[in-house]
């Protein structure tokens, strides 16, 4: 009996979501916000952590988070919110690309997550040098980052697209390893250029445009002459990076993986010496 009730809840929720996404009249919006239970931690919307937002709220969030992220680039939650509220079309595009790729399709059905709890660190440490898993672990150690620092998706109103967004965030560190970029400002900007070319997410494009403003002239030169063009070219021609089942490829040699993805090795070797706190 309770199962029927839960299904009934879901049906009602979906009905309201349809009203929402069509951006209908204020009455519907008011109805939605007057109806209780929407901010309940147990009653999670479409997925755990989901918060329903009206189009007005999304617009306000996009502007507000953009301003906040510009003022304080270390506010990763604001960058995340900006990505979620502006990335709807790009996410659909990414999801369709994943669906058309057999490995990507597997990922969409199996929904793997990259967290410390799901990674077997000792096994990865025992892999030979030059393997993807070992290099990834080295990247995490050198730059003092952890895969668990990614914020959860909150404002995407489609469960599958929310997963695509989450996957994009979790793949970001792996991308650093694939591209051989450290987590300092120059490395991050290079990765952002790659991601902007690959995914088309407005947040990446914004980061790609505004990131260089914080670089000094020598790094800017390096960016514009070698790193930048390399990142853009490879972003465009490489296979969709979200469609790779990384969790099954730890043993694969990094160079092989790069070739498979159509990514050239970086033209400049950047060290992880100047670390910024993530």
């Amino acid at each position, binding site marked *: *009996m*309770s*199962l*029927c*009730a*839960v299904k*009934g*809840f879901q*049906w*009602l929720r979906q009905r*309201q979501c349809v009203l929402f996404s069509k951006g209908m009249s*204020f*009455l519907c*919006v*008011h*109805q939605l*916000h*007057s*109806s*209780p*239970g*929407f*901010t*309940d*931690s*147990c*009653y999670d919307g479409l997925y755990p952590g989901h*918060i329903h937002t*009206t189009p*007005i*709220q999304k617009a*306000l*969030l996009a502007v*507000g*988070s953009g*301003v*906040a992220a510009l003022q304080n680039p270390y*506010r990763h*939650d*604001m960058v995340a*919110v900006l990505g979620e509220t502006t990335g709807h079309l790009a996410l659909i595009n990414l999801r369709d690309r994943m669906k058309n790729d057999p490995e990507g399709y597997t990922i969409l059905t199996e929904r793997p997550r990259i967290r410390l709890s799901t990674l077997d660190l000792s096994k990865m440490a025992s892999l030979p040098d030059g393997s993807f898993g070992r290099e990834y672990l080295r990247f995490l150690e050198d730059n003092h980052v952890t895969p668990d620092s990614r914020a959860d998706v*909150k404002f995407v109103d489609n469960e599958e697209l929310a997963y695509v967004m989450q996957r994009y965030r979790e793949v970001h560190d792996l991308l650093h390893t694939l591209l051989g970029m450290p987590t300092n400002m120059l490395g991050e900007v290079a990765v952002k250029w790659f991601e902007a070319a690959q995914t088309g997410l407005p947040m990446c494009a914004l980061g790609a445009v505004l990131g260089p403003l914080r670089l000094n002239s020598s790094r800017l030169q390096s960016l514009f002459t070698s790193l930048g063009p390399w990142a853009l070219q490879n972003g465009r021609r490489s296979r969709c990076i979200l469609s790779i089942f990384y969790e099954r490829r730890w043993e694969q040699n990094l160079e092989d993986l790069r070739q498979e993805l159509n990514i050239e090795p970086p033209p400049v070797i950047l060290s992880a010496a100047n670390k910024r706190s993530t």
Partner: protein
Amino acid sequence: MAASVRLLLRLSHRNINVAAAGGSARPGCCWGPTGPSSCRCFSDATGDRSTHFGFETVPETEKAKRVYKVFENVAQKYDVMNDAMSLGIHRVWKDMLLRAMHPQPGVRLLDVAGGTGDIAFRFLEYVQSQQERQKRRAARSTQTPSWQDISTNYSTEDEDGPQESKAVVCDINKEMLKVGKQKADSMGISAAGLSWVVGDAEELPFDDDQFDIYTIAFGIRNVTHIDQALQEALRVLKPGGRFMCLEFSKVTNPVLARLYDTYSFQMIPVLGEVIAGDWKSYQYLVESIRKFPDQEEFKGMIEDAGFYCVHYHNLTGGVVALHSGFKL
């Protein structure tokens, strides 16, 4: 099976009814957070007392915990958010509370749910300026005293003055009190007339007949049992003492009400997310305003607790109401 169909129908009706009623939900009706517990609410068999947490229904025992969590999360950004959400108008409301209070030197204030100390600081400033005004009046009334006389008068008055007026800030949440103390230090307010006490509004850690004025500003809607808080207020006040409450209330003008609702539900959670990184706490705050009784009903509750001469003033068109009562 039939029960679940009934459940579905009631829920769909509820959606439409809630919109028509403008969000003032019937207290007994539970849009339960999880399937099984909502069925329990409908059957009313177990008799678990439940109350509202924003628009959610939670067991009474849980509400205090969840409110604590909310204020723990928002404490650091509380003042910034107040300025952002009310566009600075909350300062005017608090100033008006003080003006209505018109405290004289020597008076003891208890500010409950006073967290970051806004009311207490204003109280101390007000009393200090009243004192200075009295000194000036006294100086004017004495006919050409010698400088020695004046300086001895000043020195004796200084010793008595600040110590007599005491403000006690009481809050259930340690994080909020911490922020308040830091503020006091940075503002350079002397610790002489100010105390910070952890306490529950429903069970105050003070003796009877202690205070001249009891204030609670934007705190009483978060209390689980408002009637108990009112009774405690009556208890700790001296005879002749005054109870004053600033709280969000029902907007009278329908046009303003619509604008206010839109602003509350669209803008405030967004501000919470952008400034404080916490959407849900501010969603709760906005919903809790809708669940609080309106001006007349709250006036009735204050009278029921035993206060006399209960009045209220609407500020900003009813967005905020200032209730006042006396213990006689």
